């Protein structure tokens, strides 16, 4: 498997040879940020297009077909429209917080995004408590949503924001428990090591039943974290028109929109990293020729393939189910997911201790 760290080290050495070390660091930071944001935006555009087409297919429609062949340029047109729209300022709103909120949401998702291992060595942030960092970074997105709802001086937004707060804080717990059971299985918190440990077998196979249960719970809770149906109450359009981002327009709304999609990507990306082996190819022990063929497929393709499969799963769910009510959302978490998650963690630990894993 090709290691991207050879390229990054080469660039690093080159920069250090021509620049003083402080300046080299600065240039590296800018380069990395540029690449990360570019990837972030491009993926968001791909996902918006995918969402519209997948949704249409589930609904017996064709989806966008007008702009470009098969509507391929539709999203670019939408982005362009969003860019040239006026950002309307709201009377009696808390101007500072109102303008800050969308950036908080985007910041949290970019930070989490930078932890994703796209391929061997192709990862912005990688340190020994990477999993912890992901959870911490992703959970301050809720702050942006709460602030957006509060500052826009709109009652719909307010209700949406409060719903979102209750929901996201609850579901963090389940996500934590699922990740914890994988950490228990692998014995490490560093993301690169987590992926490397799956080279011989993905955790969802090695951890068998408890890993599978954790995967399902993770998908449910991840769906709730991203405020997507059936957990889209914060922006339930038939109840609260648009929930917390009712008053936002132009690119401010665009930030929420992009962040929502990228959160979906991140949730799917983490799912594929933790459960489906990240960028490691599918290996079946005993079939050596098969394994070598699999090795020829680059890691990026493996990672994106798995991630987009999980995204497709989540879209399938989103376009099938009706929305829950707020008390049902909370009771689903506290009465079902948390107890099952705890039990699952216990079983997983037991399996690891007794060596009942593959």
């Amino acid at each position, binding site marked *: 498997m090709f290691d991207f760290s050879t390229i990054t080290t080469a660039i690093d050495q080159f920069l250090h040879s021509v620049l003083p070390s402080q300046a080299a660091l600065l240039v590296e930071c800018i380069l990395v940020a540029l690449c990360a944001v570019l990837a972030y935006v491009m993926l968001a555009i791909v996902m918006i297009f995918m969402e519209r087409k997948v949704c249409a297919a589930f609904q017996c*429609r064709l989806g966008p077909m007008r702009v470009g062949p098969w509507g391929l340029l539709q999203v670019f047109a939408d982005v362009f429209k969003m860019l040239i729209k006026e950002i309307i300022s709201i009377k009696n709103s808390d101007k500072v917080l109102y303008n800050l909120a969308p950036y908080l949401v985007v910041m949290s998702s970019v930070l989490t995004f930078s932890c994703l291992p796209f391929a061997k060595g192709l990862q912005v942030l990688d340190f020994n408590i990477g999993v912890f960092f992901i959870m911490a970074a992703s959970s301050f997105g809720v702050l942006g949503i709460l602030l957006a709802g509060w500052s826009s001086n709109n009652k719909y937004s307010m*209700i949406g924001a409060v*719903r979102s707060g209750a929901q996201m804080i609850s579901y963090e717990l389940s996500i934590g428990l699922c990740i914890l059971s994988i950490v228990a299985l692998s014995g490490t918190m560093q993301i690169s090591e987590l992926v490397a440990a799956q080279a011989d077998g993905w955790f969802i196979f090695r951890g068998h039943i408890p890993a599978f249960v954790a995967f399902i719970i993770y998908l449910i809770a991840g769906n709730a974290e991203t405020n997507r149906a059936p957990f889209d109450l914060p922006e339930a359009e038939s109840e*609260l028109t648009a929930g917390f981002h009712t008053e936002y327009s132009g690119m401010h709304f665009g930030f929420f929109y992009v962040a929502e999609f990228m959160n979906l990507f991140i949730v799917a990306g983490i799912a594929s990293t933790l459960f489906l082996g990240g960028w490691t190819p599918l290996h079946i022990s005993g079939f050596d020729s098969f394994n070598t063929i699999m090795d020829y497929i680059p890691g990026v393709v493996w990672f994106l393939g798995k991630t987009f499969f999980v995204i497709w799963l989540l879209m399938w769910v989103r376009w*099938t189910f*009706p929305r*829950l*009510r707020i*008390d049902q959302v909370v009771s689903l978490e506290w009465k079902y997911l948390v107890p099952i998650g705890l039990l699952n963690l216990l079983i997983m630990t037991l399996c690891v201790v007794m060596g009942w894993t593959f």
Partner: protein
Amino acid sequence: MNPEFIDINDFRARMETLRRTGMNFLRDIIGMDWGEEGLGAIYSLENTSTGQVLQTAVRCCDREKPSIPTVCDLWSVAELYEREVYDFFGIHFAGHPDMRRLYLRNDWVGHPLRKDYNEDEAINPIRMENEIPEDVQRPYELAEDAEMEISDKLTNKIHGDQYIINIGPQHPATHGVLRFRLALDGEEIRKIDIHCGYIHRGIEKMSEKMTYPQILALTDRLDYLSAHQNRHALCMCIEKAMGIEITDRTQYIRTIMDELQRIDSHLLFLSCAAMDLGAITTFIYGFRDREKILDIFEEVTGGRLIQNYNTIGGVQYDITPDFAKKVKEFCQYQKGKLQEYNDVFTNNIITRKRMIGVGILSYDDAISYGCTGGTGRASGWACDVRKRHPYALYDKVDFKEIIYKNGDCYDRFLVRLDEIVESIHIIEQLIDNIPEGDYKVKTKPIIRIPEGRYSASVEGSRGEFGVFIESKGDKSPYRIKFRPMGLPLVAAMHKILKGAKIADLIAIGATLDYVIPDIDR
């Protein structure tokens, strides 16, 4: 049918007696302006256990300060009906707790359905400023000396210090321009205040200047999802009044069309209910299948939503040669698709949790609020006009009246799903046996209805749709009144909403299945 006129002094006592003796369903209150003889109202009552029908009327000679005792404590639905009469005729209902206008603005001058109403536009210009809500309303009461006076008791609808949120008039879940003012406590709804009239077009007022064929064109625009049934009711009423016998072929066509329209409406109900609960895919499935009915409508009537099909004495066009084949194909197709709705939505655990036990309307409340149609039947009230007072061919076909017991959202939803099956069943019995004959009988070029009062009612897609005509023998009616199907449903809203959450309001609104142009007229 001529109403029983009651002296205003005995009115209250007589109505109380009627209520006690089982006249528990107040179909409608029809405000009347009899000119010299004064203002008044006609009450249409029915005994739901015996089927006995009665109309009573009361007159008030004082045109300056007309007042009639209220009956809203006897029949809950009268609360909104009386507000409507007050709005259009200026009759105060003494003892009514909330005597506000229902449709027009608070600052509207005059009462438009009175015969002496001044239509000058300068009096009621298009107002550019906001309407100030009358949150604190002083009720009018009948004092000892029979004079109207404003009571000191304040009936607070909604306090200013509550968390008030407006659902509507522009809101995705009200399916039109209806406005609820909600007082919230967290997510829970404490009070609801309903504002109608955002799409009030004054169809009853317009009709008083139009000829009968012209009025027919307006009925499609009342409840646009019961266009055929509405028009059927008015045609039936006019035909009855003029003594026109329509052919069997017409009866068959009308019945089939009514049922197709009912399926159309119920499919839209199902779709919109699903969308309100967040299941957008089910919404598209419903619309996909509804398209097939609309195609049939377009082929036969020339219209998809506004069909203009029934005319006085028949129908506009004969059916097309392949009509029967297409309808049979559709029936087969639709039967298969019902299982899909059940799989993807009805039996879904989330749907069940959202709907079961939510928004319960009890049997007694359903009758007291006059909630006919699927809503009433979900509460156990056998209120189908097709069974109670059969018209067209409904006494000849075999079909089941769908009745559920719980009266919650889920039952209201299931009633409609099952009614689709029953409607298909009715169509299948009729479609192969359409007799040969004329689709239309010749009528006089100018339609005049002999003097008198006439009424007819049909089972619309969402309840009993009634037409009342008072004629003086002219080309136009002296007074025409359409019984709205949606107004009683909206009236029952605050009863149903006890302890509900915002999300429940959406589910309840979706399953009550009101259509705003029908409420506002």
